[in-house]
Structures are given as C-alpha cells and as structure tokens.
C-alpha cells in the first residue's frame, strides 16, 4: 500500500466543498450569496461532491496487487491504462510528483474554501452600488457622462421620421447632419410617453413605445387604480420597473418605500436614492434599483442607512434623463430587513 498524498488532498477538497455548501445552507447564510429560489442546484452540487469524495477516496492508497498496472500507469501519469488511452487523456491525474505548478493549482482550488469557511459574507452596500453604478431604472451616471448621454437619451425632434437611427447614429454620412442638431428640450415630454428615452425618434420609436406600453399596460392599470403605491419586498421590482418606464403616468400618486440610502457625487444636498439590490441568481449579478427622493433633510442621512419614506411621485430630469422622483413628506429610520435583497418576479 502506498499513500497517495495528492489523491487524498483531492478527496479532502471535494468533501470540503460539500461541507462548505452544507454549512451555508444549514446556517441560512446561502441567502447572502444566491437567490434562494435556485438553492436546489447548490444542494445537488453538495450531494455530488460527497459522492465524488467517496469515489476519490479509493485512490488515496494505491494497491500493490495492481502494481503491474501502475508501473506503467504512473510512468505515464495515467492511472488506468486499460480505459484511459493516452490520446485523450491530457490532464494531470495526481500521480505525478509535486511541483510548484501543482501546488499552486491546489492552492487556487482551495482558496474559495478557505475564504468561505473563515470570512463572513458581506451584505452588499452603497460602496458596491457606486461601483455597479447605473443598473436597473437607476439615475443616469455622474456628470462626466452627461454630455455623452445627452444625444442618445434625448429623443430627437421628429426630423427624420422614417429613420430608425438614433440622433448620433454613426453608420452613414447622410445622418451626420443630425449630430449637429441640438436636441430640443421641449420635445422631451412629448416623447416621454415612450419612456424608452434611449431610443430613436420618429414613427418607429412611437410604435416601439407603444409595444413597451402594451407589455406594461396591465401593470400600469393596476398601479394607477391603487389609492397609494405601497412597495414591499414582493412587489418592489415590478412596481419600480413600471414606474420608471412611465414616470408621468404616476405623477401625483402617493408612494411608500423603504431601502438603503445611496448617493452619487453629482447629487444635490436634498437628493438621495432609496435603493435596493436586486438579485437574479447570485450577488454577482446584483443590480441597484430604487427611487430618487428629494426633501430638505436628505443631506443629514448617511449612506447605507435604512429608511422608510412616504411622499408624492413626480417627474424630474437628472443628468438629462427623465425619471420619477419622490417628494418626501414623511420618513423614518428603520432596521435593515432580514433579507435585504429583492428578487425579480417570474
């Protein structure tokens, strides 16, 4: 019997992966990494790791009885010469000796295990939001991009009705004259019904706005019928999405919302964003969604403070983009919810 250290190490790593996944599920901390709706997959993975551990364990000691197999196999770095023909077998089977490269490979594989067991998960906060920047229905980014955005975000006056290109479309010389035209701010509200501000002008744009509107019509009707819009974890995503797409349809409506405070460099003292992170699968695909809020006490609030606000919806332009704003008339600090994230509704 010969002890195979690398094979044993592999077995240990496999079981440790199963253990880490088990621990995260057992402690409920998995919700800080992924959308629990998909937790079944990592549970399956955990079971598969346990199974592979038992398979791998057999290789931790090599049998002398099969020495004639292995004399050949080890020489070639192939563990089972009968079935593993040399052609397709290009990976390291762990019977070869140690080198810096193999050690580094195991270190890389084991790295998430070490950090996973030893470091606590961190709830995403405003500093991550600042890096993620402009995700779903979130105010346009800082001022430096405002000039760039201006052309695309402001719909062109109906100067070229049949042209599907955005004002500064760069594909044809016949369109260059459009680039010089200054977008007329007056038309902003005309086309705003489309809500799809980033898109082109003219009839096609209107048609398209129509399609978006059709898609959302049911939701719009439901929301406009409500006496006041009360956002909770369940409806947060769909309501926010709808209101951001058609801000002017909800102007004057009462709204209540909670989230964490997020501010951008370009914002005024009175402005802040009441934000939530939306998780589709895992925190890596998290996006920031929320509402721009405005009132004179906003400047006093630190970022990452959880607040609940009440107010009236309005429409504003921020960085030349039209978006809903909440004129706040009541607010309070709240505890961060147990599950700080919101999830898309399918």
């Amino acid at each position, binding site marked *: *019997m010969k002890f195979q250290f690398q094979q044993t190490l*592999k*077995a*240990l790593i*496999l079981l440790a992966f199963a253990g*880490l996944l088990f*621990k995260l599920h057992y402690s409920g901390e998995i919700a800080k*990494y*992924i959308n629990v709706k998909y937790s079944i*997959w990592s549970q*399956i993975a955990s079971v598969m790791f346990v199974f592979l*551990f038992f*398979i791998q*364990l*057999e*290789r931790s*000691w090599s049998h002398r009885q099969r020495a004639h197999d292995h004399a050949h196999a080890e020489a070639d770095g192939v*563990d*089972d010469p009968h*079935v*593993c023909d040399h*052609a*397709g077998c*290009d*990976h*390291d*089977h*762990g019977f070869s000796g140690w080198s810096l490269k193999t050690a580094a490979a195991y270190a890389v*594989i084991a790295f*998430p295990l070490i*950090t996973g067991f*030893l470091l606590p998960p*961190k709830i*995403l906060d405003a500093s*991550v939001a*600042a*890096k993620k*920047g402009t995700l*779903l*229905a*979130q105010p346009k*980014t*800082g001022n430096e*991009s405002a000039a*760039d*955005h201006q*052309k*695309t*975000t402001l719909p062109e006056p109906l100067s070229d009705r049949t042209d*599907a290109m955005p004002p500064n*479309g*760069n*594909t044809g010389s016949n369109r260059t004259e459009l680039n010089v035209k200054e977008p007329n701010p007056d038309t902003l509200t005309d086309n705003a019904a489309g809500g799809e501000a980033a898109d082109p002008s003219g009839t096609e744009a209107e048609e398209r706005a129509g399609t978006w509107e059709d898609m959302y019509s049911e939701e719009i009707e439901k929301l406009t019928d409500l006496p006041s819009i009360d956002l909770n974890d369940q409806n947060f995503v769909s309501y926010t*999405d709808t209101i*951001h797409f058609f801000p002017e349809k909800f102007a004057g409506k009462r709204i209540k919302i909670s989230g964490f405070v997020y501010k951008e460099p370009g914002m005024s003292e009175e402005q802040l964003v009441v934000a939530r992170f939306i998780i*589709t*699968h*895992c925190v890596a*695909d998290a*996006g920031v969604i929320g509402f721009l809020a405005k009132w004179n006490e906003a400047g006093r609030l630190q970022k990452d403070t959880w607040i609940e606000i009440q107010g009236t919806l309005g429409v504003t332009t921020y960085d030349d983009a039209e978006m809903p704003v909440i004129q706040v008339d009541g607010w309070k600090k709240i505890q961060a919810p147990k599950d700080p994230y919101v999830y898309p509704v399918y």
Partner: protein
Amino acid sequence: MIHWLRARVIDFTGLAILCAVFYFVFIADSFDFPAMERSWFIPPSFLSLNTIFLSIIIESVPFVLIGVLIAGMIQIFVTEDHIRRWMPRNRFWAILISCILGALFPACECGIVPIVRRLIAKGVPVYAGVGFLLTGPLINPVVIFSTYMAFGNNAKIAVWRMLLGFAVALVVAFAVSVLFKKNQLKHGQTIPTSSPAAVRPAFRTRWMAMLHHSIDEFFDMGKYLMLGAFFAAFVQTYVPSKSLLAIGGGVGSSTMVMMGLAYLLSLCSEADAFIGASFRNMFPTTAILGFLVFGPMLDLKNTLMMLGAFRTQFVAVLAVLIAVAVFAGVMAVHPWL
C-alpha cells in the same frame, strides 16, 4: 492486526478527512472572533469581493460538475470511431449540425468548456467544437425563458438573441475552420488511429474510470474557474462600471461598451437577461442585444477556462472572431430593432 489495518486503511483515511471537514463545518465557527474585529485587518471591500467571488462559484459549480461528468462519460464511453462515424464529412454540415446540437444541449458557458475539450480530443474537428461551444450556453430553454421574462414578457428580444447568436456561431465556426487545421488543444495530442482498448474492461471498471476522469477534470478546470470568478469579482468590486458607461454615446460605441461590460461581469447566461434589460432606458436596444449575445459566448471567466484547455493563440483569435462577429451582427440587424 497489521493485515486488518491495511485492509481498512482507506476507511481510516476517509474518516480522518471527514473529521477535518466536520470541524470546519460545525466547530470552527464558534472559535471565531467576531466579524467586526476581523474587518480591522481585512478591508470591508475585500469581504465584498469575497462574497461576490463565492457567489459566482456557488452559482456555477453545479453546472461545472455536470459538465465534467459529461466530459468523463465522453472520455470513457465515446471512442474515436464513434466520432468518425457520427461526424459529417462535409465541413458545412459539420458546422451546422454542431451548432444545432449546441442549441439543443442546455449548458452554461463554464460547464461546456470541459465537454468541448473532451470532444475535440476525441477527434471532433475544432470548428465543430467551436460551434457547439458557442450555441450551447446561449441557446437553451432557460435562457430563452429568462430573456422573455426580463424584457417584460416580450418575445422580440429573446427571438433576436437566439437568431443572431446562432448566426454568429455559424460564422465564427466557419472562420475557425478556415484558419485552424489542428485540434488546438493545449497539449496538442494527436488522435491515434486505433483505440488501444481493444479488450473492453468490465462495466464497473469503466464507470469508475469515468468518475475518476470527471474528478481530475474538475480539478483541472476548477482552478481556471476559481481564477476567472476571482477576476470577475475583483472587477465588480473595484472597477466602477461608470467609467465604462461614460464612453457610450452612439450606437456603435454603446454596443462596444455593453459587450465590454458583458465580458467583464462574467454573468451566467441564465441570469444576464435581467441585467441587460436594466440598461434599456440608457442604451439603444442594439447595444443591449450585443450584451446578450456576446456575454454567453465569451467572458472573463470562460476565457480563463478556455486558456486552460486550448492554445493561447487559438483562444485569442477566437475571442477576436467572436467579438467582431457579434458586433457586425448587431450592427447588421440594427435597422430592424
């Protein structure tokens, strides 16, 4: 006594490992000092990075495991003769069939790399492998459904995504067939003319060999997955996407920005539709389509995995081909969007 110990030495090794893992799962945490104290010497931003890093791994590991198991099965149960018989002689047919197979085969962009590597090692032409590699993660029911949902129950974007993705895969696979002749695997093995396994081993032995292969494949591909996930998490934590978004102005540049974003974020193809949709009010639909088509085909995470499997030069050329094809593709369909 010694004989008894020898017979059970594997059991004891297993027990020792079990104890070690048990310690970490159930006990180690209670010895831990409070999280607050830890953040003194570990900056909070690293904790964010680590959380994102682990979440990518937790999300992708089930699919990587499925991928390596399938790769193991291919290694043991599919012979070069099978491939020779199944693969159409005609290059165009081979490309078309491989793209269709990829479309029918549900996989994610990290799980498919070991499978394709194994197929190519078994004698599948590299262009057919590429077709399969590109359509596998992009065109499958989960992706279609999530795209449909993310864009407010509208099939238009989902349909465009699939059609354009398929077209790009065909074009790239064809270009690869013109540019590359050899199998482009990292270690550059050649395909033997006859299988050395003339005598078929017992069924159980073959299954065990398959599982052993899968494990080795996991360790082989796993390190690239970890590195890719770590880079992606690093970018997400420390690089503001604002700096990228600031470049976006016209259709062309905003499409490039969105494709760059898709590359760096390394989102799973099943989850990227919602993120793509969130840029609707900022970028033209064309740019968003670029994001949706490019991301599943090529991103930071799967580039690293491909570098582990294929020659560097091949991966670089493939990346350029995909980027150019996707960009040209979305620009071509722009008038209809």
